[in-house]
Every structure is written in structure tokens, then in C-alpha cells.
């Protein structure tokens, strides 16, 4: 794959004064074409999320928006997959501790030919396999079922151990919510993964700052998060979770580093609701529903247009 060096630290779109560490500027950076493609795929995730939630009439908008770039980068750059072969034994695995963002994953699995795209249109309808949380027994391409927050890292570790015994080498990516850090089982798994030197296990924390009841720091503070993972024996990387170039670079490096004996934790700084202004500012959009007019405005904003007049009709809530 051709590589292009990035000239300097990428600007931090979150404006929090963070800069990307040199690691993210290493040779293995994606081309502008790749970057554009990943950005387009992230937009696709957001648009499909809106479309599918409109069918269900309730869904997890902002949880999915915060990890759209993560989904895109993993499924179109980082992971080794085979089109149409969801059960290829040597594929990389992807698990979601935050299974409630599955609505953003399904379109990508359909795109990979793991199931017919038409299934998406029946999202959450009786008899359809696609629910709010992913079910591995029903949905080809879902590597593990979830919905009960906190199990996924353990299951991912199990895949590493099983792969080791079966003599297969694949990487296992586990995406976790930042609220999920409060579940004890995550730390059981973290400790065990370090003990087992699970170098091919990669945890990704979607550090969007919010959980159901509000700001993570107010509900149940989890900082200093990087110190926690380090103290549990992990190699820690912090990255802007909406910068596909930085993400792709980091995941490529992690994949290439075959000598790593520690599992790696990627703390992805994100915005919950990223892409739709009012969602970025209102925790409640973890779960909700957009009536058609509001949906149109959200779509317009995601497509890069200034938010439409519908939003200006009345007071903000």
C-alpha cells in the first residue's frame, strides 16, 4: 500500500490542546484517497444510522456517531477480512462492548457481502435478524453477541487464546464505551490479557465523555484512564477518534508490530453525537428519535451543509 508522510501534527479538531504523538506521523500513513474514502464511509455510517433508526423509531444516535470514524477505519483499512466470507477462520475479529452502536456496524457488514443489503430495510422488525444489539447467531459477520456492557473484552481475550491453540494468527479488536470502564469485568479481562501477553488484542475506548445518565466524569469518574490501562499492563495510545488519517496510521502500526507482547489500548477521543451539532451538546441523544423534518436537517448537517432552516423554526430544547 502506498504511503504518504503527513507534514506535521494534525490539528486537533476537538480544540482541547492535544496534539498527536509522533507515532501517528510514522511512514505508514494512508493516502489522501484512502482518507477521503474512510471519511465517506464514516458519513455513510451516520446516514445509515439515521435511516435505520427511522425504521425502529428509537435508537442510539450519538453513541454511533462518536465511533463512525472508528468503524470506517477498522472495516475499510485496519482489519483483514474477505468479502462474502464472514466465517473465514483467519479473519480479524471485531467485538463491541458498546453493542448499542451496532446500527452503525450493520451497513458495513452488508457492504462486505456478509448478508444481503435488503435486510437493513427491516431493521428491528419482527423476524429480521438485525436488532439494537448484535446477535452472532442471527447476523453473519457479527463476531460476538453483545448488549450487556462489560463482557466483550473477555470474549475477545478468549478468541486470542483459542486462536493461539488452533495455531491461527488474527487480530482481535474490541470497542468499548467509556462508561463501560465502570464494569469490573473489563478489568478482570484487562488483567488477564496482560498476563496472557495477548499482543494481538486491541481494545479501543470510545472516549466520548458521556454515558446514559450524563457526563462520565459526573456519573462515575474514570480518569486517569490511560494510567489505569498502563497499570493493568497495557500499551496505551491516545488518538483523535474522528481523524481517520491518525486512526489508520495508528492501527496500521499496531498491526505491523508483531513483536508486541502487551495488549494495546487505543483511547480514542471523540465527541458523542459527532456530526450533528445539537447532539454533540446534549447528552440525551444517546437514545431518541428524530421526526422526519429533524432527520432531514441532521442529514443535511452530516452531508456538510449548514444546518437547515427547520432547526431555526423554534427554541432549542
Amino acid at each position, binding site marked *: 500500500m502506498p504511503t504518504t508522510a503527513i507534514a506535521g501534527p494534525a490539528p486537533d479538531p476537538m480544540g482541547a490542546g492535544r496534539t498527536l504523538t509522533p507515532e501517528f506521523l510514522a511512514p505508514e500513513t494512508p493516502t489522501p484517497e484512502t482518507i477521503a474514502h474512510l471519511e465517506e464511509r464514516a458519513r455513510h455510517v451516520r446516514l445509515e444510522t439515521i435511516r435505520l433508526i427511522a425504521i425502529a*423509531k428509537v435508537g442510539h444516535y450519538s453513541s454511533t456517531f462518536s465511533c463512525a470514524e472508528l468503524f470506517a477505519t477498522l472495516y475499510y483499512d485496519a482489519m483483514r477480512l474477505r468479502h462474502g466470507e464472514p466465517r473465514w477462520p483467519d479473519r480479524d475479529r471485531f467485538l463491541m462492548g458498546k453493542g448499542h452502536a451496532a446500527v452503525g456496524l450493520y451497513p458495513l457488514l452488508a457492504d462486505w457481502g456478509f448478508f444481503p443489503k435488503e435486510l437493513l430495510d427491516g431493521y428491528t422488525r419482527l423476524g429480521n435478524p438485525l436488532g439494537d444489539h448484535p446477535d452472532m447467531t442471527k447476523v453473519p459477520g457479527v463476531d460476538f453477541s453483545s448488549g450487556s456492557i462489560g463482557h466483550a473484552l473477555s470474549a475477545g481475550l478468549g478468541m486470542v487464546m483459542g486462536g493461539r491453540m488452533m495455531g491461527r494468527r488474527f487480530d482481535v479488536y474490541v470497542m468499548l464505551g467509556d*462508561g463501560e470502564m465502570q464494569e469490573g469485568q473489563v478489568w478482570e479481562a484487562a488483567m488477564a490479557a496482560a498476563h496472557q501477553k495477548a499482543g494481538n488484542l486491541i481494545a479501543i475506548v470510545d472516549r466520548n465523555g458521556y454515558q446514559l445518565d450524563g457526563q462520565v466524569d459526573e456519573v*462515575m469518574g474514570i480518569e486517569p484512564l490511560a494510567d489505569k490501562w498502563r497499570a493493568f499492563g497495557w500499551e496505551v495510545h491516545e488518538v483523535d477518534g474522528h481523524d481517520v488519517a491518525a486512526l489508520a496510521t495508528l492501527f496500521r502500526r499496531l498491526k505491523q508490530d508483531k513483536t508486541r507482547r502487551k495488549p494495546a489500548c487505543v483511547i480514542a477521543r471523540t465527541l458523542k453525537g459527532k456530526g450533528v451539532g445539537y447532539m454533540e451538546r446534549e447528552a440525551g441523544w444517546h437514545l431518541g428519535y428524530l421526526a422526519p423534518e429533524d432527520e432531514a436537517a441532521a442529514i443535511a448537517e452530516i452531508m456538510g451543509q449548514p444546518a437547515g432552516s427547520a432547526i431555526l423554526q423554534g427554541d432549542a430544547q
Partner: protein
Amino acid sequence: MTATNTLAGPVNPGSWQYRQLNARAPGLSYLSDALSALVEDGHPVMAGTADLQYSNGLARFAARYPDRFIQFGISEQNMVSAAAGIATTGVMPFVATFASFLGLLCCEQIRMDVAYSALPVRLIGHHAGIALGFYGTSHHATEDLAIMRSIAGLTVVNPADGPQLAAAIKASADHPEPIYFRIGRGQEPNVYDDLPDFRFGKAIEHETGTDLTIIACGTMVHPSREAVRALRASGLSVGLIDMHTIKPLDRDAVLAAAERSRIILTVEEHNILGGLGGAVAEVMAEAGTKAVLIRHGIRDEYSLIAPPTHLYRHYQLDAAGIETVVRDILA
């Protein structure tokens, strides 16, 4: 207020987000209001939840009594064990989360720290059964009655609606045992008027019948009542019992019904193994009643996903479905 572009939110009345849940599920108010009433009566109540204060409506209680509310974040097991510790200091803790996490994930903490330790903790498992529809199995709880019933020293209550929940919470102030309350999603139609009579372990007989008696609990009482009305209107002698307390079970009510009716039909939003049906089966088999038992509920399988009302229809757990089940039995 002048809305700027970036601050503006949705404006259409159909749009809603999580913090507005209470408006969409008015039944959510009963829990907070019943707890507030206990506080007003001078009881040392404390409430807690695990990152679900809008789902169970405790946000309402928290706003009113911030010092009596503990937010545990997503750590249900810590919440239950901590509630037990809280109870040792004379406080009366109520902790709430989805029934799937309370009744299953915290099952061992409930046995060890709450029931075996005989501490008056009140556990509220909400959105029980398949009420969370297309959230899927992780969020369904069709095992919790069986699990909680196996734990010694625990009272297990499955109120039919908000008013009965409120009555049970009021009654709990004098109840020495820890209690597991199993409730719905706050969108169920009410069966009872405000603060109905409530006694732990004392079933409520709605109708008596000789052909068949339905013994229902929780969210199934309302559709069962609708079904019974229709069945009686068409001349069938069908009874109905609200078995709100699963443990201790009202044996006398079961035996009286089994004496009177040829058939007992249990109706529960739960696996037909081990829950209400299982509890009634134990009484009937030991008494050697002449009546036979039929159990209606989730038939030892993982529910499909779909919106809740679609699932109730699919599994014949709505009024029409229950009516059909009874007609088929009596045909």
C-alpha cells in the same frame, strides 16, 4: 430564546430524546413518587441506580432528594453489594436497574449480601420480560423470577401496574425481608386505581370460574383481564387471579382455584420453566389437585426481536393472544 445554528435542537413534536422518557412512559413516575412518599413519612430511604435514572424514572426522585440518591454508574454488582452495606447502617436502600442485569448479573450478590445477610434491601428490576423488544436478549429478563425464587429469604413481587407497585413499596416499609420487585417499562395500562390494597403473599381474585382460572402476574394481569372479560361475555366460566407475590406464593389461592376450576392457566412474561408457572406447578403437584396446569409464557427460548407490542402479539401475550390460548384450550 434565540436559537443559533449550532445550539439548536430538534423542534418537531415527534422528536424526543432520552431525558424526555418520563413524558413518554408515564408509569415511570410511580417508583419515584412512592419513594418520595416514604421519605415524607419519615423513612430513611435512599435510592440508587446504575446509569439508568431516566429509564426507571429515578431522575425524578434524584431531583427532589439529591442527597438521598446515589449514582453507581455501570457497575450493577457494586451497586447491590453497596446497597447491602448501606442497609447495615439503618438506611432503607432501593436500587434499580434493568431486570436482566439485576436479576441475572447480580444474582450472586443478591444471594450473598442481601438475602443470606438478611438485609432489608429493595431491588427494583424494571423492563422485565421482553419489554425491551428489539434491544434483544441481553436486555430481556425471562429468567429472573425463577432465579430470584430459588434464593431463600427473598420476597419476590411482580406488581401488575404502577399503582400496585406504589402500594407494594408503601407496604414494604414494614416488611422485614429483602424484596425483589419486578416491573415493566412504565407504558402498561393500569389495572388498579391509586394505592390499591396490597398484602405481600395475598393474591387478588378478580373473577372466579369453573372452566378455567388464569393465574397471571405483572404485566400479564391487564391483558388477562381483558381476555377474561371477552371470554366471560361469550359464556365461558373463566376466573382470574393476580398473583403479584411470586414468593411466598399464596398457596391457598392456588388450591382454591384448582378446587373450583378444571384447568389452571398461568400467564407470565417469563420462561414457562421455573417462574410463576413453576411455582404454581409445585403447589398443585404436591397437593395432587384434580385440576391440570397449563403454562403460558415464553416457551424456553430466546425471544425474537421486534417492538414490544409486536412481540406480545407474536407470543400471544396480549389480550387477543391470551383469549385465543384459552379458547383453544377449552375448545
